Structures are given as C-alpha cells and as structure tokens.
C-alpha cells in the first residue's frame, strides 16, 4: 500500500494549510492551546472584534438546552485599537499556524476602515468578515441577510487585501445560496457558515427567559442537520472554498461536512464540551483517511444520494 503523506492537507484559497480543522470564532482562544496540539489546527480564528470596545449583553448569557447551547454574548470585545496593541502581539508570538482575524462593523465604511487598519499589521493570514452575529442589533447580522449589501461589502474589501477574505454567513435567511454567490461575486476568497441560529429557552415554572435578552444564538449538535444542509447548498452554489461549522462534535460529524462540500471545518461549541475536541477530530480524520487510503480533499462534495 502506498502511503499518503499528509492526507489532511488542504488549501483555503491561496493559503496552504496542514489541517482542515479550525475553530469557530468566539469559542476558542489561546487558553485552549494548553489542551491541544497547535499543529492540529489549520488556522486560528480569533473572537470577532469591532471598531470600538463593546461591553456585550447583560447576563445571564448562556443556557444549555437539550441538544445545544444558547448564547447572548453580544460580541463583547476590547475594540480594534486595543486588539492591535495588546492581543495581536501575543497572538503573533504564540501562533505557529495562520491567524484569521474575525471582525465586524456597523457600516460599510467601518468595515473598510477596520480592514485598512488591519492590513498594516503583520502576522495576519486572512480575515473572517462577520456579517452574521444574531446577538447584536444594527450590526453584523443586518448585513448578512441582504445579498446586495454582502456583494457590495466584498467588492469594497477584496481590492484592499491580498490576504484571505472569508465571509461568515448567517443561517437565518431564506436562501443561503444567493448570499454565498453574492459574496463570491464580490471577491470573497472563501465563505464560512453557519453562525448561530435564533434560539430561546424559558423556565417553564415561572416564565423567565433563560437568557436576559430573550432571543439568543443557538449552537451545538442540535443545529448540525441544518448546518449540513446549508453547507451543501452553499457549496453547490459557489466555487470558492467553504468552511463549515455548526454542531460538529467529533470526526464522524466532521466527515459529514466534507462529503457535503466543505473544504475545512470549524469546531465551536465542541471546544466547551471537550477540551480535546480539536485533537480528537484531527486524529479521527487522519485514521479514517489512512485506513481508507484516501486524501480528505478527494471526498469533498462527493455526497451521493
């Protein structure tokens, strides 16, 4: 039997990566590197930053449902300047894998300004443009639901950078294929999906909303079938790579997404459920490929009905 050297090697646009496993923005930080092998990550995606510091939403911000997690963080973050001054140097220092910076703006102009600012910084391999956070109003998600706006945003950003330009889409839309296409045509080099879906939970005894803001973002295993359907739809609609996420807890889950058309997958809630999730998914995929003597790339999109 011929040995395949690294069956998990893949690429994200121009970026060659050694692992198809990455992490979902907001669910993984440097602290997690205490638990896993950094080399098992194809890229490191940081928590979404905004132009100005954000306090985020009032607590309670979390609630675990029967099959997933509700969150209402509201993009709490220190803002772009502090990110650049304080966080970025540490990230540059610590990371041996490509850094993808997730950011979100409240207007087209702000997105452009933020990108321009980040372009001046070294040690960034790509951006994840978050137009899909359900936990903030008039920001993020307002952009993600309108194909024309998404198209325009990408058309404004793509000429300004040689780095990877990933657009993160919202599942809370009527037709994700249209939005994915709009991003591609605007010059996005990849799309990622899904962000959390709307979710709510109420204490049946007294009617109290489990999270303060009422509606929050729902993630975890319960959204996997939806994430998989949307990954399939989006992957059918565009030629650029798709980074898939939504309820991936183990390597078997991950494989479903590769078959459906994802080039990379990201672990989100799984990092809370199992600190070793990245390692286990990487190793599971590795063994699968070695055993079946295939390259992961070769199964991407090969779902059969």
């Amino acid at each position, binding site marked *: 039997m011929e040995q395949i050297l690294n069956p998990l090697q893949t690429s994200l646009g121009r970026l060659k990566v050694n692992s198809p496993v990455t992490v979902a923005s907001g669910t993984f930080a440097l602290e997690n590197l205490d638990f896993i092998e950094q080399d098992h990550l194809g890229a490191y995606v940081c928590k979404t930053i905004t132009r100005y510091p954000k306090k985020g939403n*009032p*607590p309670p911000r979390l609630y675990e449902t029967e099959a997933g997690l509700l969150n209402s963080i509201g993009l709490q973050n220190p803002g772009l300047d502090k990110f650049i001054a304080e966080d970025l140097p540490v990230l540059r220092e610590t990371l041996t894998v490509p850094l993808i910076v997730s950011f979100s703006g409240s207007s087209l102009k702000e997105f452009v300004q933020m990108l321009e600012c980040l372009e001046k910084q070294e040690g960034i391999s790509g951006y994840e443009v978050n137009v899909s956070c359900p936990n903030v109003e008039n920001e993020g998600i307002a952009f993600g639901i309108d194909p024309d706006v998404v198209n325009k945003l990408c058309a404004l950003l793509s000429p300004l950078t040689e780095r990877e330009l990933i657009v993160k889409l919202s599942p809370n839309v009527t037709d994700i294929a249209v939005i994915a296409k709009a991003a591609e045509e605007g010059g996005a080099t990849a799309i990622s999906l899904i962000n959390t879906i709307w979710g709510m939970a109420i204490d049946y005894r007294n009617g109290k909303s489990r999270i303060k803001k009422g509606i929050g973002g729902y993630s975890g295993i319960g959204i996997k079938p939806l994430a998989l359907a949307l990954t399939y739809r989006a992957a059918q609609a565009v030629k650029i790579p798709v980074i898939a996420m939504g309820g991936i807890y183990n390597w078997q889950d991950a494989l479903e997404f590769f078959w459906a058309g994802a080039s990379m997958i990201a672990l989100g809630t799984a990092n809370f459920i199992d600190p070793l999730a990245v390692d286990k998914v990487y190793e599971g995929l590795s063994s699968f490929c070695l055993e079946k003597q295939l390259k992961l790339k070769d199964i991407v999109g090969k779902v059969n009905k």
Partner: protein
Amino acid sequence: MKMNKSQPQFLERAIYFREELSGDYFILWIWDEALGKKCQPGQFFQIRAHYSIADAEETRSLPKLFKPISIYDNAEGRIGFFIKKVGAGTNALYKLKAGDLLELIGPLGNGFPLVTGRKILLVSGGIGYPPLWYLQKKLIKHNLLYWVHGGSGQSDVFPCDEVWTEDGSFGKKGMVTEGISKLIAEKKIDLVYSCGPVPMLKECAIITTELNIEHYCSIEAYMACGIGVCYGCAIPVGQENDWNYLRVCKEGPVFNAGEVLWNKF
C-alpha cells in the same frame, strides 16, 4: 494579600472516595498531590462525569457542558468536591461511584485573597458553603473567624458557628443575612468573605458597603468554557459610569463586593 494563578489542566482522575451527605449533597474525592499544590481557596474546577464518544454511539446520551464546582477541601493531595444535586449535570456526578472517572479542568479562577491578623466573618448560603470550608482552613491559624451559614431547611445545614434556616427547622429562622449587621458590630469584624446565591451576596454587600467593611464575595454564574474564552459568565463590575463585564471564571469568581454593580444583574 496574595493572588495565586496557575495554568489550568485537563485531567481525568478516578474518584477514590464518595461520601453521601444529608439531602441531595455528596462529596467526591480525588487524589493528586501535584494538582493539590496548585490549588487555592476560592478556586474551582470544571468537572464532569467521564464521557466518551463511544458512549454517544452506543447509548442515547449527548455530551454536555462541564459544571463549575469549588474546591471544598485540599489536604495532602486529597481534593474534595462538595456538591448538591440540582439538575442533569450534578445528577450525573451524583451517580458516580468510587473508581469511576471524573473529567476535570482546573484549577480555575482567582481564589480568595489570603490575610493574617484580621477579624473575619464568613457568610455562606446553600451551596456557597464548600469554598468557605477550604478558605477557613487556610485562615484559621492567623485570624479570628466567625462563620454563619444559611439554608432553606435542616438538610442544607453544615458545620459552622451559626446556622440559619428559612423554614426554621434548624438554628435561627430566617435569611442568613438578617443577623450580619449585628454580628459585625458585636465581633468587631473588619473583613467579610461570602459565597452563595446572588440575592444573598447583594444583601450582604449592601450591609458591608454601608458599614465600610472590606468584603470579598465568590459569585456563581452559568459557564460554558470556564477558562475565560467564551465571555458567557460575565458580570458587571466597576463604577456606575465606568464599568465592564468581567468573567467570573477568569477575573473571578472572587470579587470585591463593593465593585460589583449589583443593580445591573
């Protein structure tokens, strides 16, 4: 005063002893000397009954979040978790037997500032009891201590100096916070440590602020990661016009009670 921090670890440890207490309380003991050396009073672990993906495939259960549990005791490597069964996560812990595997992430959080030569009041409510046990063991040699504990009934009562129950079934009848002002005066208290439900801590904080007494409280919050990553456990801390959401798992769980914005909860 010193604050201790150490890199949290992810570990699997067998339970070497399980104690069944009154009501829905129980204690799980693990044994790990190196780990014990890293722990401070007020710190906690994220713990969970061992879960394997094989379980998921073979049975019908889904993996769930870890649960934050304080360090109740820590002596010569014997680390105890004093737990109340309240829902699915703690129930899964309740069902464990000696020999079963526990998954742990920790030690986590800042812990209580340790002091000497002070007159200290410890105030606990319900499941706020365990971290104060470990704390008082560390403080008792070099400070004067008085511990009041409150619970809803007699099965929520544990060894301390003064007990309050809501139903009056044991000790004094009422909320544990009712007697605090008087105690502070009587015992010339100059420092309060508290742990319990937010309404109790708030009540306590109002009193200590009014009397201008130093007060550290350990706060509970719903957690996902436990390691400062998700910002899910944040609570409002600071001044009315200059505040932020701080993470209970990272900047806490112990906060200066005077700095917590109790009205913003």
